[in-house]
C-alpha cells in the first residue's frame, strides 16, 4: 500500500472524526451545563488526534523501513572480491534498488529470467532503463527486497491506520460538556507554530554543517594559513582524474575585491538612497509619495542578472568608450571593472537603502519634528539636527544590512567585475569577488573531491561568516535604537 494512499485514508478518518466529534459535542449541549468549548473545537481536537500522531508514525516508519531495506540488501549481497565488477558497495545497493523498482513494473505472474541480458529487454519494453553493469546475482536479491518492502509497507499502513482510529476514538470518548477541547487545540497550535519557526533555524544549521564538513576536507589538503592569508589565487584547474597539480588558494585577492566592490556600491547607494528616503519621508506630498515609492521599490524587483546584463552590455562599454574619448587614446576604464560593477550594484541597492531608511525616519516620533519646528527651525534644520541624529543608529543598521547584501551579491559581479583575481587599488581595473569564484569553482567538470572544488565551500563558509557578523552587528544596533524612545 503506498504511503500516499495511507495518508489519504488517515485524513479521511480525521474528517469523519471531526464531524462525529462536532455532532456529539452539539448533542451534549442540552442547556443543563454551560459547555466549556464550542462544538467545533471538539471536532478539531478529534481531527488532530486522529491525524497528527498517525502521520508522525508514518513518517518515522517510512524513513526507518528504507534504512532497514538498505541494510537488508547490503547483507544479502555477496562478499566483495578484488575483481568485483561494480565500483563500490553503495553503488551495488543502489543498483539492486533500481532493479527492484523496475521489477515492480512487470506483471506479478511473469516468470523472471535468470540473466540480466534477458531481463533488460523486458524492462525496456516497460520503459525502464537500467545501468548496464547490473549483475545477474542481483535479480533474486531484488525480488526478495520487493517482498520485504511490500511486507514493511503493509505492516506500516496497518499500524498507522490503527493509531489513527485509536486517536479518533480516544478524542471522541473524551467529549463532555466540561472537556477542555478549546485549550487542547490551543496547545497544539502553539506546538505547530513552534515547529514552523524551528524549520528556518534548523535549515540554517544544516547549511552551515554541510558546508563545514566540505570545508574541513578542503583544509586537509590546503593549510588554513595559506588560504586565509595567501595573496595569490591560482587554483590550477585540474580536470577530473588528472589529479596531481596543486594550486594556490589565497583568499586575500577575492576578499579585497569583494569589499572594494561593496564599498563602491555603498558609496553610490547610501547617499542617493538616504536622500530619496528623506525626501519621501519628509517632503513628498502623499500624492507624489504614492507614485514614487512603488516606482522606486520596483527597482528592487528587477532580477540581478538583468542588472548584470545592463552592466556588461551597456554601461561597461559606454564607460570604456567614454574614458577612451577623454584621453583621446587608450581607455583607462576597462570593460569589466570594479567601478562598473560597483556602480550597477549601487543602483540595485538604492531601493534597499531608501526603503529601510524611510521606515526608520518615519518611525521618529512626530513629537520630535513638532518640538523642533515649534522652536522656529526650518524643515532641513529639523532633519539635519534632530531627525537624522535620532534615526542614525537605525540608518547605520540599515547600511550594514545593505552591505551584507552587497557582499553576497553574485550575478552582477559575475558579469561585470571580471574573473581575474587581481590585487589592485585602481577602481577602473577588473577584480573578482568571493561569489564569482564560488560560481567558477563549482561549474565545469572538475573532480568533486579535489581542493579545486572543495575551496568553493571554504569560500562559501567565509562569506557566510562575514555576512552573519555584519547582520548580527546591524541587528544589535537596530535593537539598541528601538529602546531609545519610550
Amino acid at each position: 500500500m503506498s504511503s500516499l494512499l495511507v495518508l489519504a485514508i488517515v485524513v479521511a478518518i480525521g474528517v469523519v472524526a471531526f464531524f462525529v466529534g462536532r455532532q456529539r459535542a452539539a448533542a451534549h449541549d442540552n442547556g443543563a451545563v454551560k459547555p466549556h468549548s464550542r462544538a467545533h473545537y471538539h471536532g478539531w481536537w478529534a481531527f488532530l488526534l486522529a491525524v497528527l500522531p498517525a502521520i508522525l508514525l508514518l513518517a518515522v516508519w517510512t524513513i526507518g523501513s528504507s534504512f532497514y531495506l538498505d541494510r537488508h540488501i547490503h547483507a544479502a549481497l555477496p562478499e566483495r572480491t578484488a575483481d568485483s565488477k561494480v565500483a563500490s558497495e553503495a553503488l551495488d545497493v543502489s543498483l539492486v534498488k533500481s532493479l527492484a523498482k523496475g521489477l515492480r513494473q512487470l506483471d506479478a505472474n511473469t516468470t523472471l529470467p535468470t540473466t540480466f541480458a534477458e531481463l533488460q529487454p523486458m524492462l525496456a519494453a516497460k520503459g525502464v532503463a537500467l545501468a548496464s553493469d547490473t549483475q545477474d546475482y542481483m535479480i533474486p536479491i531484488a525480488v526478495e527486497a520487493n517482498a520485504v518492502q511490500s511486507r514493511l509497507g503493509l505492516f506500516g499502513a496497518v499500524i498507522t491506520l490503527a493509531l489513527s482510529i485509536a486517536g479518533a476514538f480516544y478524542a471522541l470518548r473524551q467529549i463532555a460538556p466540561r472537556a477542555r477541547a478549546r485549550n487542547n487545540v490551543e496547545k497544539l497550535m502553539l506546538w505547530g507554530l513552534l515547529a514552523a519557526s524551528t524549520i528556518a533555524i534548523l535549515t540554517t544549521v544544516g547549511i552551515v554543517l554541510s558546508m563545514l564538513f566540505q570545508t574541513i576536507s578542503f583544509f586537509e589538503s590546503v593549510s588554513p594559513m595559506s588560504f586565509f592569508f595567501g595573496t595569490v589565487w591560482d587554483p590550477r584547474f585540474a580536470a577530473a582524474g588528472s589529479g596531481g597539480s596543486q594550486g594556490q588558494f589565497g583568499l586575500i585577492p577575492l576578499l579585497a575585491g569583494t569589499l572594494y566592490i561593496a564599498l563602491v556600491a555603498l558609496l553610490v547607494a547610501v547617499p542617493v538612497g538616504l536622500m530619496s528616503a528623506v525626501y519621501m519621508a519628509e517632503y513628498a506630498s502623499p500624492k507624489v509619495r504614492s507614485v514614487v515609492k512603488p516606482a522606486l521599490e520596483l527597482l528592487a524587483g528587477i532580477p540581478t542578472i538583468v542588472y548584470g546584463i545592463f552592466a556588461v552590455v551597456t554601461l561597461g562599454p559606454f564607460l570604456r568608450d567614454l574614458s577612451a574619448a577623454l584621453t583621446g587614446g587608450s581607455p583607462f576604464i576597462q570593460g569589466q571593472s570594479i567601478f562598473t560593477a560597483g556602480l550597477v550594484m549601487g543602483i540595485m541597492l538604492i531601493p534597499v537603502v531608501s526603503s529601510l531608511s524611510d521606515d526608520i525616519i518615519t518611525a521618529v516620533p512626530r513629537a520630535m519634528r513638532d518640538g523642533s519646528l515649534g522652536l522656529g527651525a526650518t524643515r532641513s534644520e529639523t532633519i539635519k539636527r534632530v531627525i537624522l541624529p535620532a534615526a542614525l543608529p537605525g540608518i547605520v543598521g540599515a547600511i550594514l544590512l545593505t552591505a551584507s547584501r552587497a557582499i553576497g551579491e553574485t550575478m552582477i559581479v559575475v558579469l561585470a567585475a571580471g574573473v581575474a583575481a587581481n590585487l589592485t587599488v585602481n577602481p577602473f581595473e577588473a577584480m573578482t569577488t568571493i561569489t564569482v569564484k564560488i560560481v567558477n569553482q563549482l561549474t565545469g567538470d572538475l573532480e568533486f573531491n579535489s581542493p579545486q572544488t572543495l575551496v568553493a565551500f571554504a569560500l562559501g563558509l567565509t562569506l557566510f561568516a562575514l555576512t552573519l557578523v555584519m547582520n548580527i552587528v546591524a541587528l544589535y544596533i537596530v535593537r539598541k535604537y528601538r529602546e531609545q524612545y519610550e
Partner: protein
Amino acid sequence: MNIMTEQSLENAVGEKMSAKSNEVIKMRGDKVGVFYGEKQALFDVNLDVRLNQVTALIGPSGCGKSTFLRCLNRMNDTIDSARVTGKITLDEEDIYDKNIDVVELRARVGMVFQKPNPFPKSIYENVAYGPRIHGLAKRKADMDQIVESSLKKAAIWNEVKDRLQEPGTGLSGGQQQRLCIARAIAVSPEVILMDEPCSALDPIATARVEELIDELRQNYTIVIVTHSMQQAARVSQRTAMFHLGYLVEEGATDKMFTNPDDQRTQDYITGRFG
C-alpha cells in the same frame, strides 16, 4: 449674543488700555476658522491674548482649543490638509501674511507640547538647540550663559546643573517638561503656547510646572490649553471656553469660574457637561 459680548469687551479693554499697560493686546484672533480637509474644526473665533497674562483655553475634548492654539504659531501649517481662514495678528501684524517668515514667527511664539518631547541629545544641547539655529550666541561662553539662565527660569537648574551632558530623555517626566519649557525660553520668545503641558505629569510635577507658569508671566505672554478646571483657575488671568469648534465665552478667570454668562460654561466648570 457672542458679537455683543465681544463688542463690549473690546470697549472695556480700550478703556483700560490707557490706564494700565498690562492690558495691551499681544495677539488677536479675528474670525479664525480652521478646516481639516473638508471638515471644519473651528468657526469664527474672535479671541484676544493680553500681554504678560496667562490665557487659559478650556472646553471638552475635540472642541477646537488645541486647534486654535496651533494657529497662533502656524503649527497647523505642518499638517497637509489643514487650512486657516480669518486673521491672526501678533503686535498688530498679520501672521498669515505672505511677507511673514513662519520660521521667525515660531521663534517669537514658542510652544510646549502635551507630551514632554526632549530631543535625544544631552540636556545642554536640548536647550542650546534653538539659540544655535537662530545664531543667538557668538561664543561658547554666551551659549553657556543662555543655557544656564533658561534652565534657571524653568526652575530646573539645580536639578540638572551637574549632569548637563547626560541625555535629556533620561530625566523624569516632570523634569523633561520643564526642560522643554527651558528649551522654548532659550530662544527668547514673546509668547509661549502650552498644549496641556501637565496632562502627562503627576500632581507634584504638575504643581511645579504651574508655579513656573506663574513666574514666567512676568516676562512672557502665555496661552495654555488645559483639561483641568482647577489648573485654569490657579494659573490664568483670562479664560476662554470652547465648545464644538465655537468660542462660547471669554473673560477674566475670576468671573468665568464664579459667574459665567453662558449656561454651557456653567455646566462645564461644574462638571455637569454631557
